[in-house]
């Protein structure tokens, strides 16, 4: 199992190295500390949300609303901050709010036995709309004298957000592998009937997974607020697809039961690397899109071929 899961990570990792290598070959600046730091920092928002999405996808679900959730939670965070709340409370409040949004998704999905694809397609619009209703569509700006959030996504050296992401990846790798909850997530995603038969609380597990996904979306939203100093209800539009792509490139199966948090991180890094590399190599924006799309497809094809051989 251990060896196998390392092999599963090899595919995306090689893809990452190859892509990085090509860009670095054309522009050695890719190898500078500054660029590497940029890539890491720019991965944080997708990376943290992708951890939650990995859990959701392993459990056999999907969450299309995560982009809207990040926007809505960001709005909430910014509003709490402008109210003068202390940072720890803001963190707590926003994460709790995110968890609540995730709980709504999980609750409707399991309670009414609906497909998560369509439920979160609905809540995607609802959360997005809610963010705009609350703010009347304009971003909530942080007061200029608030500096507590800056070091999370910027400043000298490695921002705290990067450490946070790394810590979360390690934590959730351990949770998935070494806790009962983690094994239940795999069991539910692999075969829900078997899980039920073996006395696993399937509904509880699923709701919990969506709730964690929401909480991590809340954290991701906080990083976004820290980065842009505002809670913007229109941010992160379409980000759900980036996040899902990262998770899938990282080796997760959309039919559930398979996936790793570390893989998702590698997937997210791959996406950032493409974007940064294209900019540094002066590739025009539309081409970046074509290239990103092509690399997503190629990455999963490579993964597929590797599986076939093994």
């Amino acid at each position: 199992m251990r060896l196998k899961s390392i092999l599963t990570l090899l595919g995306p990792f090689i893809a990452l190295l190859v892509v990085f290598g090509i860009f670095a070959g054309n522009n050695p600046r890719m190898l500078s500390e500054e660029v590497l730091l940029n890539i890491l920092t720019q991965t944080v928002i997708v990376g943290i949300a992708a951890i939650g999405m990995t859990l959701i996808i392993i459990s056999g679900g999907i969450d299309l609303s995560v982009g809207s959730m990040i926007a809505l939670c960001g709005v909430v965070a910014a509003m709490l901050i402008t109210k003068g709340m202390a940072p720890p409370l803001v963190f707590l409040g926003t994460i709790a709010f995110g968890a609540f949004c995730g709980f709504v998704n999980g609750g409707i999905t399991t309670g009414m036995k609906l497909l998560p694809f369509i439920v979160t397609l609905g809540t995607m619009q609802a959360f997005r709309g809610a963010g705009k209703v609350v703010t009347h569509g304009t971003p909530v700006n942080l007061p200029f004298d608030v500096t507590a959030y800056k070091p999370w996504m910027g400043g000298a050296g490695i921002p705290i957000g990067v450490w946070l992401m790394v810590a979360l990846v390690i934590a959730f790798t351990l949770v998935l592998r070494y806790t009962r909850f983690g094994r239940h997530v795999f069991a539910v995603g692999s075969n829900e009937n078997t899980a039920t038969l073996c006395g696993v609380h399937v509904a509880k597990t699923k709701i919990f997974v969506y709730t964690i996904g929401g909480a991590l979306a809340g954290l991701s939203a906080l990083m976004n607020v820290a980065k842009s100093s505002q809670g913007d209800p229109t941010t992160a539009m379409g980000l759900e697809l980036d996040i899902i792509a990262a998770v899938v490139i990282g080796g997760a199966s959309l039919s559930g039961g398979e996936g790793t948090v570390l893989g998702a991180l590698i997937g997210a890094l791959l996406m950032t690397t493409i974007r940064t590399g294209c900019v540094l190599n002066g590739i025009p924006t539309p081409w970046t899109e074509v290239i990103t799309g092509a690399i997503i497809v190629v990455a999963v094809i490579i993964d597929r071929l590797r599986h076939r051989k093994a």
Partner: protein
Amino acid sequence: GTGKTRVAVIPKGTTHIYWKSVEAGAKKAADELGVEVTFIGPQKEDDRSQQIDLVKNQSLQNDAIVLAPLDAVALRDVVKEVSAKKPVVIIDSSLADSEGFIASYVATDNREGGRIAARALSESLGGKGKVTVMRYMQGSASTEQREEGFFEEIKKSPGIEVVSSEQYAGATASQAQDTATNLLTRLAEGDGLSVQGIFTSNQTSTYGMLQALRGKNLAGKVKLVGFDCDATFIDALKKGEMQGSVLQDPLNMGYLSVKTAVAKLKGEKVEATVDTGATLITPTNLEDPKISALIKTQLP
């Protein structure tokens, strides 16, 4: 790595012809000054987070940055960070509290643009009637300023009443057209409309509104003042379907921004704000050589 001075121009998006003109202006300045200009926009338009990343990445390999910030606050920190090392010229939309660190602000006065539009619409209505505003998109600062300028100015005409300004056109022309069609249906009264004038605040929303009016055979029966330029608008102006459109001068904006950036690099003194002007085009002034030259820069 040619040893030339390098300037990165970062627009809000790359789709609109407007940004093409900015690019053309920037390139023109680059040719004159012998510098190298990179023109690159965020991959997802209107994505602030990506534009922040873009500024960061570009600052690594350019000597100066010209930026049209998607948001007045979101881009503030990154600009502040970058401007410590390299001059940053802000174009098109303002950046909050940026007097201290940006090299210069080169832009159309959007609020003034909105005022110009309001005056034009009021005039075409003879100072009385009902008007409606179809806004562009929530969170877009420049259009919101235009809309505010419009409201400010239109208040000065006591005979004019603004009904319905709660609808947003949406990001694309196609969405704008649907919204406009539905809005017109709601405002319908008999064969015509319950309003006599319409203001739209950017290119796609004006385009969508014009198409919707044409589709409902209302074009020409209501006064329309829009923003920005498009071949269709010129045609509509000539046919009397539009009464005016407020043009910015993106070519000039691109040109002046690069010039300002290079001047700053050379240590010359530059103005804190440079107004690139807003011009109203109307059916009657299209032939004016200055106007037609301006229009020419904004058509493909």
